[in-house]
């Protein structure tokens, strides 16, 4: 057991991938000598060389498009998109090429490409540096979408994502990059596509992922002082979603609140609400509620505390759920 930040955990995870998989590559803007703008790839260029840790031209479609070509040649690229809001120039290569080429080929081609994207707000950044674009990718068949919420998951999930033969969009909650926690580097606790029950409870279920897992945990701790016993589930995988633990929890508590930073409209929370309504209809004591970013562009950073789901908004939603 070692204590480390999420950045360090990702770095160590990538090192293990590069050591174990001779065909793996790291590619992106500034991932080489600089070690990435968040230092996730720090030292990899020195230890694995410029041939495997590739500083690319500044063009996101090019990064994903050439990663596809490298994968067709038998390489296993791990791409970095520098910030969430910079992924859109690569949209065609992600949703029409990376996602669909294996299916187009009738299963004869596999594209083991991982695309790491720091996402979410709360860091006081300028426009395009705080977005949560996960729903676009979770909506696209052919891609798998996951997000880590803590260093231990970061360490293992990046290795698991790189070990599979399907393309994975790997969202990293950038405002949790420097939070420290214990990491067991001996064995993975969970499969990549399993949800995790973070805290058990009987009053209501909070469903979160990435940066909002911490928000939900804090809300549950605060609620406990008021005598409310909240269960917290970290989805981890957004495509495919691991439904069974979610359904089991809601059948137990009868109430669910989904928490994410992305706008609520047509988002992950909407899909969770729909599926929970279908599968847990007779157990529900209240409609599934959502605490999300508002349906507006991410605001100027001085307003982000008002935009992002926080402890008070989560507890307010729990109260509303209990009022039914």
């Amino acid at each position, binding site marked *: 057991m070692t204590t480390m930040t999420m950045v360090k955990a990702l770095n160590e995870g990538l090192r293990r991938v590069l050591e174990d998989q001779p065909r793996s590559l790291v590619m992106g803007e500034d991932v080489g000598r600089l070690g990435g703008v968040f230092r996730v790839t720090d030292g990899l260029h020195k230890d694995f060389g410029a041939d495997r840790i590739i500083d690319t*031209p500044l063009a996101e479609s090019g990064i994903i498009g*050439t990663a596809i070509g490298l994968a067709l040649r038998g390489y296993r690229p791990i791409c970095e998109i520098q910030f969430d809001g910079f992924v859109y120039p690569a949209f*065609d290569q992600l949703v029409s090429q990376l996602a669909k080429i294996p299916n187009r080929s009738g299963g004869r081609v596999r594209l083991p490409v991982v695309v790491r994207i720091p996402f979410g707000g709360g860091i006081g950044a300028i426009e395009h540096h705080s977005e949560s674009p996960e729903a676009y990718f979770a909506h696209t068949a052919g891609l798998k979408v996951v997000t880590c919420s803590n260093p231990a998951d970061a360490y293992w999930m990046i290795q698991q994502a790189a070990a599979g033969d399907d393309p994975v969009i790997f969202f990293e909650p950038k405002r949790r990059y420097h939070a420290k926690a214990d990491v067991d580097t001996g064995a993975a606790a969970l499969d990549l*596509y399993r949800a995790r029950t973070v805290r058990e409870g009987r009053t209501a279920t909070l469903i979160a992922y990435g940066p909002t897992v911490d928000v939900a945990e804090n809300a549950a701790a605060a609620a406990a002082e008021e005598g409310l016993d909240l269960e917290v589930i970290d989805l981890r995988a957004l495509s495919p979603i691991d439904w069974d633990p979610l359904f089991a929890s809601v059948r137990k508590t009868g109430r669910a609140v989904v928490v994410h930073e992305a706008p609520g409209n047509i988002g992950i929370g909407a899909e969770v609400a729909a599926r929970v309504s279908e599968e847990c209809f007779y157990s529900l004591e209240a409609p599934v509620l959502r605490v999300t970013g508002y349906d507006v562009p991410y605001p100027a950073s001085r307003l982000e505390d008002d935009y992002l789901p926080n402890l008070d908004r989560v507890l307010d939603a729990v109260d509303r759920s209990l009022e039914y």
Partner: protein
Amino acid sequence: MGDQQRPARKTAKNRQKSASTNEPEFVQLLTPEGRRVNHPDYDLKLTDDEYRGLYRDLVVTRELDAQGTALQRQGQLGLWPSLLGQEAAQVGSGRALKPQDTVFPAYRELGVQWCRDIDLISSFALFRGTDLGGRDVAADRFNMYAIVIASQTLHAAGYAMGVAKDGAVGTDDGEAVVVYHGDGATSEGDFNEALIWAGVFNSPLVLFCQNNQYAISETNARQFRLPPHRRAEGFGVPGVLVDGNDVLATYAVTETALDRARRGEGPSLIEAYTYRMQPHTTSDDATRYRDEAELDFWRAKDPIVRYRKWLTAEKLADEDYFARVDTEAGELVRELRARVMALTDPEVAEMFDNVYAEMPPGIAAQRAEALEFQASLDEGSEAR
């Protein structure tokens, strides 16, 4: 901003011919009249059999392509993008490839596919709608058709990076990669990014632009002010303009570019100046944007007519040979036609089976539901 295309004053000085009937300076080894001419930088010496083989390739390509159009007209294909007029660009470049080279096509490269000796049925299945054009691309060294314009240029650039990483370049037997695209593709970001990638990583990539003068209805004037072969220089990549209706010239310039790539000397761009004699696809109506005079201009530059004249003049082939090729092409067309008609609809399960290497439970459940639902309908119809 207003439309910048103002009516040109019809003075002798600034009066311009339409782009597609303007004769640029290009590499040419065989004139439209079938006369062999020399070029200071490019030459081609093939065996007599190889020269005859090129004629066979040109004719077979034209006939198989015509069959694609016919099958669409008869309701057997949903769509067909004809390559009529572009046979020399495809056959010349296709025959310049060595077995170890890898091709990334756009969606009109039936002639290249023929030259690579790859089963053509995949292209017909794609346009019949019985599958998505999937093949064993690793074994074929010929990738799937790419419908999104220029998307394949980046795949080729990445693949070529991998070739260099594998140490498969640097000798006369090295591997090269060629990507086919059109004039419209040069406006896409992906094309420009591919040139940047290939340039900065010095990858063994040849970008083969078939400038057939049209991106559906839009002429070159709406795609660039400086033609692609000249723009290449801005990327630090050599560019060459070749007569795309001259099979000897396209062969020679492609062979030179491929050899350069395989020796590790880097990428290049070939602009093959040709003409799309048919509409964009069978869904297009080209009479809305071009006239017969333009077609006549290009008919006079037909790639097969000039090559046949030259073969005849050089006594490399005679009427007997040409007749034999026609007979063979007819047989190939009949065989292909029968196979296309025999392509059956896929099973419902197939739409679910290959989306992921590891099928997620949700898709597995939908697959089962869809099959069960279909079976219930079948039972119902049997009961009636």
